[in-house]
């Protein structure tokens, strides 16, 4: 009898130890091209989604590397990650995603914050892409952005756009805006800023030529958006943005993705793969959910009023 109970408990202990050994933590390796508030929010959102789905603490190994803006480092990080054999590689922004996709033959790659995954050749098609790659595209809904500006300035004729001609996402966004603006009878005035130190001059170029300034989702412009805001205040030209985070930094208003939420949506894809789905069977998703942020104080300093209708539907009002 005693022997039997000892035997039983021994089996129980063995089973417990065994199961805890078998439940190897999920190993997620994350890489981003550069550190910047929106991309960092994506990373944190991914982590949150993993935690919400029961991956966290002991049963999650989550690593993060930034390429500090350099594609050669991105490629070295991709090789390190493939060598470390994680369960899933998450690549944030285009060059990091391209380096990861080229390097990884079999480890699933989930990309995020890539505007045009087809042009970047990350996947051959958006529906059931096949292979080991899938992810989330953050192509912006630019029509809504222009309509937002129009609701502030009903007789809107010209919009100035500072952008970095060297940034893939920014250029494709500008193309989309131009097409949409032509339909709405709005003229777009471009102003190139290849480096963040050029942003101030690019914004000043627009003074006297435009009714409003719109900052697209452009890493260079956003990193120096304060200089655009300053020009907006001095010249009384309202500054709008393509991403909501920028509203707290001085833009009048923006409709956009909450990048934390975008990370969450990316995390959902990651969880599906962890639960056994093949990345090739998961459609590439277009980011969902639009937030409206308004900054009435800034609007006043730039010489306009926030319409009641906009205030009413704003998801966040910056004081």
């Amino acid at each position, binding site marked *: 009898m005693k022997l039997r109970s000892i035997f039983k408990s021994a089996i129980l202990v063995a089973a417990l130890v065994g199961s805890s050994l078998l439940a190897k933590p999920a190993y997620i390796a994350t890489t981003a091209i550069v*550190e910047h508030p929106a991309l960092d929010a994506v990373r944190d959102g991914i982590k949150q989604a993993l935690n919400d789905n029961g991956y966290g603490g002991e049963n999650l190994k989550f*690593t*993060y*590397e*930034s390429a*500090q*803006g*350099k*594609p*050669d*480092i991105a*490629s*070295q*990080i*991709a*090789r*390190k990650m*493939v*060598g*470390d*054999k994680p369960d899933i590689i998450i690549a944030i922004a*285009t*060059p990091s995603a*391209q*380096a990861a*996709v*080229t*390097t990884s*033959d079999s480890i699933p790659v989930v990309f995020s914050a890539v505007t045009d995954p087809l*042009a*970047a*050749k*990350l996947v*051959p098609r958006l529906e059931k892409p096949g292979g080991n790659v899938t992810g989330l595209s953050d192509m912006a809904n630019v029509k809504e952005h222009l309509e937002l500006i129009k609701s502030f300035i009903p007789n809107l004729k010209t919009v100035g756009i500072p952008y970095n*001609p*060297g*940034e*893939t996402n920014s*250029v*494709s966004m500008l193309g989309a805006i131009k097409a949409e603006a032509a339909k709405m009878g709005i003229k777009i005035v471009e102003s190139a800023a*290849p480096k963040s130190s050029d942003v101030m001059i690019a914004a000043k170029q627009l003074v006297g030529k435009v009714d409003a300034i719109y900052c697209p989702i452009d890493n260079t412009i956003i990193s120096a958006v304060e200089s655009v805001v300053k020009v907006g205040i001095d010249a009384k030209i309202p500054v709008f943005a393509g991403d909501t985070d920028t509203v707290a930094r001085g833009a009048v208003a923006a409709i956009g993705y909450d990048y934390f939420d975008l990370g969450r949506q990316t995390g959902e894809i990651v969880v599906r793969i962890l639960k056994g789905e093949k990345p090739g069977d998961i459609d590439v998703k277009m980011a969902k959910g639009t937030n409206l942020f308004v900054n009435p104080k800034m609007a006043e300093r730039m010489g306009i009023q926030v319409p009641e209708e906009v205030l009413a539907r704003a998801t966040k009002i910056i004081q």
Partner: protein
Amino acid sequence: MSLYAFLGTLEIGFIYGLVAMGVYLTFRILDFPDLTVDGSFTLGAAMTATLIVMEVNPFLSTFIGTIAAASAGLVTAWLNLRFNILHLLASILTMTALYTINLRVMGKPNVALIMESTVLTPFESLGIPAMYMKVIFVAVCAIAGGLLVAWFLYTQYGLAMRAVGSNKRMAQANGIVVNEKVYVGLALSNGLVGLGGALFAQTNGFADSTMGIGTIVVGLAAVIVGESLFATRSIFVTVMSCILGSILYRIAVSMALNADFLGFQASDLNLLTAVLVTLALIFPKLRSEHKAKKAKGKEA
């Protein structure tokens, strides 16, 4: 560091070895600080990638990319020699112009080569795993490039070029056509850098308008690390040490990437790399000082 990561480190090290040799030719042989490389690295990659996407033979594309980068070097030399623009400024002007030219060449900021056939495609059927094959391929390219550069510097022509770099007036007095050597030297240097860019694009699956940023820093670091390892006057050893310096630089980056267990964050990478490269630079110096002290002690 895993084997895969180590092979990746070697691969990128060999590719930037070509860049380092290019930088060595201008900075050390010609005494011409040339920043054109930040643009010509991207130009080589952009040109090659665009042509490959247009279904031009990858070897021909790489060749054209290299020639394009070499001609960027000629522009810098021309600005300097014909119009007397300070060498540093001339190269900055070319580099700045190349940013636009690269965007024009590609028609967009990023050209993807994933799933395109590249110079590596013919070797994929040899049965060597891709991770080894890539390294062997770029190693052969870098070492062959190094041998050619060393051979070139040993020829009469190369000797004349070295003379121009060490004493322009003296070289002229000895009947060397100085300007021609500068043209050829800058073309050769930027050609090597462009070839590095072309290979980088093909092994990594993309050409990007931002990829050239900081090329000069990486190249120069590799040259100096290589020099500090071998205190030699031999041209052959110095050229080859450019490749070794470049590999060591990449190993420093890799070590910095793997340092998170020491409590470092992703954003500490640049500082860590700088510290590791600095250590590589001062270590040989400290060692030789130590030796000198010892020798002195014995004498006394």
